[in-house]
């Protein structure tokens, strides 16, 4: 067996605790996740197998408190200059075992990124919500963005500017009254305890001041969650409908206020790309391991596949391509962790968003190619569940499609690199 550490690692620009932390995660992945991942794949409705391991990651290892300030029991990751490297390492290591598990555990923190990463910090909200995450009970967050009519419209915030958001927030007696219907977010389908909800305070407006991001505990009266959808893959992540029917939350559950909410929301776009490349590369690392094994044992012309020049050529391309994906995902990391360096850019900057989308799009396209080719190399074994490559293939497709998919990335790139004025 090969160690995937043969692939590029960004030595010299990661924190000193990343190494040992990776060791812990790798241990859990090898011993607790990999032996059961085929069970998770069938467990999309009940999460009988999924929930215990989510608890292991979020509570026992403790990543659910990582973003919170130390004074409230967290790890202050949001204030560190290695937050992105750390997040990436979790996404990658767990993604290697099961990208949907990686997704649901990491996306749980996604809404918190809007108010725990400087400069967009809301300490009052942090203090108030911290006990949910630090008390030894699992607390799953959900960034409830997409709406039935809109597809990727909300993410396309620079263009659409919130104009199409149908979920409304009305201030009434010190409370926000929220009405609307969201669907598809990670960790919906009954899993989440806390929602982050993009709303409009003035329907149809494209004024950023009217964009509000409001935290809504799932047990608030008026919140209803539908059952999970059946999907091609990503079974450890539940997706469903959420209805908000005159849901009332305190006024200070809006993360910042007019204008700032929209900026803070944009940081989520970057974070989404970071997570995506982590899940994808994690999967790819495992594809490499499986392929290494298969091509060393299965044969063509009575020799191992990898000893045939032409097949080796394809194998070399696959591994080289995975290595390139891993190098590039570290670029996404660096872009985020350099945000406070003299040459750094804010997470919500056009540059950071466009460039991270560029890499995310590249990696997810490449991942589909690589994984598809790997399946082909396995021939009639490629589609067999037990070899696990096909599971990665189904999961990777979803990574490619989410977050507005390829076309939104292309537009973002065109706007950034070519200064398009009318797109």
């Amino acid at each position: 067996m090969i160690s995937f550490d043969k692939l590029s690692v960004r030595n010299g620009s990661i924190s000193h605790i990343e190494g040992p932390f990776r060791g812990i995660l790798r241990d859990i992945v090898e011993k607790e996740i990999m032996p059961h991942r085929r069970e998770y794949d069938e467990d999309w409705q009940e999460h009988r197998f999924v929930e215990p391991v989510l608890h292991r990651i979020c509570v026992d290892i403790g990543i659910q408190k990582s973003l919170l300030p130390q004074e409230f029991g967290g790890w202050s990751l949001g204030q560190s200059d290695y937050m992105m490297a750390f997040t990436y390492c979790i996404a990658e290591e767990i993604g290697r075992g099961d990208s949907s598990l990686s997704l649901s555990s990491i996306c749980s923190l996604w809404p918190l990124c809007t108010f725990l990463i400087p400069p967009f910090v809301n300490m009052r909200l942090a203090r108030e919500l911290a006990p949910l995450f630090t008390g030894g009970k699992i607390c799953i967050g959900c960034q409830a963005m997409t709406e039935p009519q809109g597809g990727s419209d909300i993410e396309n915030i620079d263009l659409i500017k919130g104009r199409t958001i149908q979920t409304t927030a009305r201030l009434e007696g010190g409370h926000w009254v929220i009405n609307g219907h969201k669907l598809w977010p990670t960790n919906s389908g009954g899993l989440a305890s806390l929602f982050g909800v993009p709303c409009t305070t003035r329907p149809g407006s494209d004024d950023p001041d009217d964009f509000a991001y409001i935290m809504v505990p799932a047990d608030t009266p008026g919140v209803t969650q539908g059952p999970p959808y059946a999907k091609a893959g990503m079974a450890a992540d539940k997706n469903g409908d959420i209805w908000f029917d005159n849901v009332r939350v305190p006024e200070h559950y809006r993360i910042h206020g007019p204008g700032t909410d929209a900026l803070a929301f944009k940081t989520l776009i970057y974070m989404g790309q970071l997570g995506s490349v982590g899940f994808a590369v994690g999967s790819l690392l495992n594809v490499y391991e499986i392929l290494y094994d298969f091509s060393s044992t299965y044969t063509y012309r009575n020799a191992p596949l990898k000893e045939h020049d032409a097949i080796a050529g394809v194998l070399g391309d696959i591994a080289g391509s995975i290595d390139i994906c891993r190098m590039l995902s570290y670029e996404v990391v660096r872009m985020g962790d350099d945000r406070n360096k003299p040459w750094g850019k804010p997470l919500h900057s056009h540059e950071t968003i466009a460039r991270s989308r560029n890499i995310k799009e590249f990696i997810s396209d490449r991942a589909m190619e690589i994984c598809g080719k790997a399946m082909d190399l396995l021939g009639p074994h490629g589609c067999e569940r037990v070899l696990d490559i096909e599971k990665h293939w189904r999961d990777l497709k979803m990574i490619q499609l989410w977050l507005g998919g390829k076309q939104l990335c292309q537009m973002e790139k065109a706007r950034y690199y070519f200064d398009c004025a009318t797109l």
Partner: protein
Amino acid sequence: MSINVNELFPYPAQWVDEDVTAIATAVHQWADKEIIKNRLEYQKAYHELFTKHRREHNIDIGFQKIIFPESYGGSGFNSPEKVPSIITILGELSRADAALGFMSALEYSASAVAAMEPSVNTSICDMIAPLLCGNELRSVAIIMPGSASTGPPSPLFLGREIRARIKRSGATCTLSGKDLRPIGNGAIADILAVVCADENDKPGIAYVTADQKGVERGNTFIQTGLDECGNADITFNDVAISSEHVISDEDAVRELYTWLNLFLGAVSLGACLNFFEILRNWSENRVIKGKGLLRENPLCASVLATVAEEISLAKILVYNISNFISRTSVWGGTENPIIFMAAQMFGKRIQQCALNAINRGMELMASAGYAKEWHAEKHWRDVKTIQTCLSAAGGEVPVQMDIARYFYGCTDI
């Protein structure tokens, strides 16, 4: 939908019999009514409805027997000119459900080697025609040369390892082989067509019924797609078969590859055509950027165009392969090396086009692309499964070696 997806995509339409066009239209309309308009119900009671529909077509309409001569109770589609018609039918079945088409494609491939003119193998037809022209649903599994992770060196068919062996002894012979991976249907097949090598390492094809003593199936395994075509590895423990049920001829193995590439090409094309309908429907109804239909956005339109182009290419290639096979006056029979090579080369490309069409189209559907509800993802999984089944371990490489041998006269690869 108001469009006719079959007329929309250009191909040399003159190659298909008018009679068959009528049958195809009937299947098309049935698929619309029974399956395509009722996907959710079909999903809910999948196994039951699948079997019901399979029976309707294979037994009630009689598709199971079409390839056999009328003297065997078949429909007499066993002449090369009928080939474009056969793929038209396969395409329509697969448009409803690729698994329906896939099962027929395996049956037709194994049957064609035995029943297709000019060289009808009566011994094998005597054995399999009664089963396939009868009133029971039957399935066929095919075991091609391929890889395994263990075992001593194997005889080769153009580089691929043949892992089933026959040993002759007069009028009977014994078939052996361990944990062989069929292209599909391994867990359910009644008839097995097995590429094997004899004592002199000469390749051939043995036909066996699954109820023979010594035929042992492994556990059914879950696959990416084609959920109804349960697959399992098969072991032959010195299975005794009649020597007449073995075609000891390397050309027959080539022919089997040829049929598989053509027929599975037609299956993937059929699945793609329904995917196209789903996507077209989506593009006509989805609003983006808060204004305008998806299809009217030029960037989305360019992706839509790519989908159509890939499907067009797949269709042109499917029909052109069928033309090579059916024009025996121009090309001779399937023993002509150009036919084997062209079927392999274009067959591989058809699968790539089909998968690429679906992969790109899914991009535009976002979560509807991977939600089971919309059914796009089923086509995607089915086509990928067909593609991998069709390729040997080593992916495209074995076929590339076939191409290189033909075009460049390579001898050592």
